């Protein structure tokens, strides 16, 4: 699904390199590493917001820069942290914006779209907030809504930047389990960045660890916390 060929990630200065890595359908990964090591930049590179400095990033064997905005919106959804809410924008309308890539020119929402929107609100457990304005919800509720919006966009790749940041322990667990289930059932690739190492280890999610020392990203599927920490956070 996603393949990296000798890529350096960063804005003007290289933050880290990925030699060769292929992320296949039906897998979920946790992206971990120090603050400022380039986790968000990697996610932004995969959804086309920034370009890798060198190397080739392929989605479905096609270089990412050959996709148009519209095509990419059918492949990739991106959940950022810290959505502050918009006055008079209801939770339902917010989630329904996830359907934008599929709507006709006039932006009309058809019945089958409505079903998808309601289903994703239901999955995330926020159906009861449908009519509430997004600026009146709590940070955690907004975080969950952002995830619902990504589910609504129904793309084979879902990228989440610290989706568990504002959530309580129960919701962290719930969201990770839910994402795992979706990954498996709908054969998606889900990458999320997180600082909640313990909970990700508990859930046995493979780690993509960025080491600041070696400036390298590596895939780790052993859940030995001290080893993970020494790779990602050791000096």
């Amino acid at each position, binding site marked *: 699904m996603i393949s990296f060929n000798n890529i350096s990630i960063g804005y003007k200065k290289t933050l880290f390199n990925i030699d060769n890595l292929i992320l296949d359908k039906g897998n979920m990964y946790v992206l971990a590493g120090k603050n400022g090591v380039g986790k968000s930049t990697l996610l932004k590179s995969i959804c086309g917001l920034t370009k890798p400095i060198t190397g080739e990033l392929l989605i479905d064997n096609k270089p990412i820069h050959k996709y148009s905005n519209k095509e990419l919106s059918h492949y990739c959804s991106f959940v950022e942290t810290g*959505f502050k809410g918009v006055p008079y*924008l209801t939770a339902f309308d917010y989630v329904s*914006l*996830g359907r934008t890539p599929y709507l006709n020119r*006039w932006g009309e929402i058809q019945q089958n779209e409505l079903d998808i929107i309601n289903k994703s609100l239901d999955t995330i457990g926020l159906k009861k907030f449908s*009519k509430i304005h997004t600026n009146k919800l709590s940070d955690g509720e907004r975080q969950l809504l952002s995830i619902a919006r990504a589910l609504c966009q129904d793309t084979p790749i879902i990228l989440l930047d610290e989706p568990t940041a504002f959530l309580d322990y129960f919701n962290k667990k719930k969201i990770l389990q839910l994402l795992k289930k979706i990954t498996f059932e709908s054969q998606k690739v889900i990458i999320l960045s997180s600082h909640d190492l313990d909970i990700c280890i508990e859930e046995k999610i493979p780690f993509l660890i960025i080491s600041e020392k070696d400036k390298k990203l590596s895939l780790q599927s052993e859940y030995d916390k001290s080893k993970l920490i020494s790779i990602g956070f050791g000096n």
Partner: protein
Amino acid sequence: MKNNSLNRIWIGTLCLIIPLLGILHLFIGEIHISFPEFLDSIFNYSQHETSHILIWEFRIPRLIIALIAGASLAVSGLIMQTLFNNPLAGPSILGINSGASFFIGLLILSGIYFFNTDIGITISALMGSFLFGMLMLACSLFVRSNISLLLIGIMISSFIGALINLMQSYAEAEKLKTFFIWSMGSLQQVQLDQLGWIIGVTLIGLLSSFLLVKPLNALVLGEKNASLLGINIQSFRVQCIAITAILCGTVTAFCGPIAFVGLAIPNLSKIIFKTQNHKYLILTNILLGSTFILICDIIIRLLESSILIPINVLTSIIGAPFVIYLVVKKRS
């Protein structure tokens, strides 16, 4: 659902109020016109009847231009506010009105008669609005902060104001007077034969704004998210500026710079209708904008015999306190 039915009642009420206000607007004035006279002028027009000429040459054009000006300014304000993601954006603040004013000023004060036709005035106002709209857009690419962008808009406006003042000091008295009257804003400057042209141009602008519903809705989440939702931001921005320039430029060309409608009405319609769906917002802005200008003009007509208030003055008198209220409310 409760909210939806309330909105329907509001829209229905506005649809009823506008024709009623329109009729009131037609019959109010220093010269009294009776209903039979009005019917007579429509079905049995005669060039020798003063009342018929009054109705066709003055009252009807003024009514139609009031409706058009309100709708156009409100919709262009809405588009600006969503494009710049800022509730205090508007054609008058972002220098789009000033752009039109500058070109019109250049036209009137320099006395170039080459462009001194309806089409010439419209085209130069359109060019002015479009050019300054694009200038603001270019600034928005470099300046991320909304506050800085508003400041730049205000600076551009005062810079143009200064240029216009400079031109005025070199202009002949007669031209100066023409320009001054234009800049006060009036709904009475339009003649019957210009109406078709204005209706055509603004109708194109209003209808094409509905084509922007989908990207406008997505842009509520900011440009980055809209782009991730498949919106081509670059072309969308140009479309927004083009439509705003068409709507705002035309109205400014024929009615003078009318302030605050484009700023206040979009906010008011969000407060009343409590939605961010631009399909409804465009519709409600058309209705509310027309209603607002109609009410302003009715007030002007009622007071005409004792005091002459230019439309620009009245909209500012009502609009400015409203904007202050918005800012204060937003802070608390």
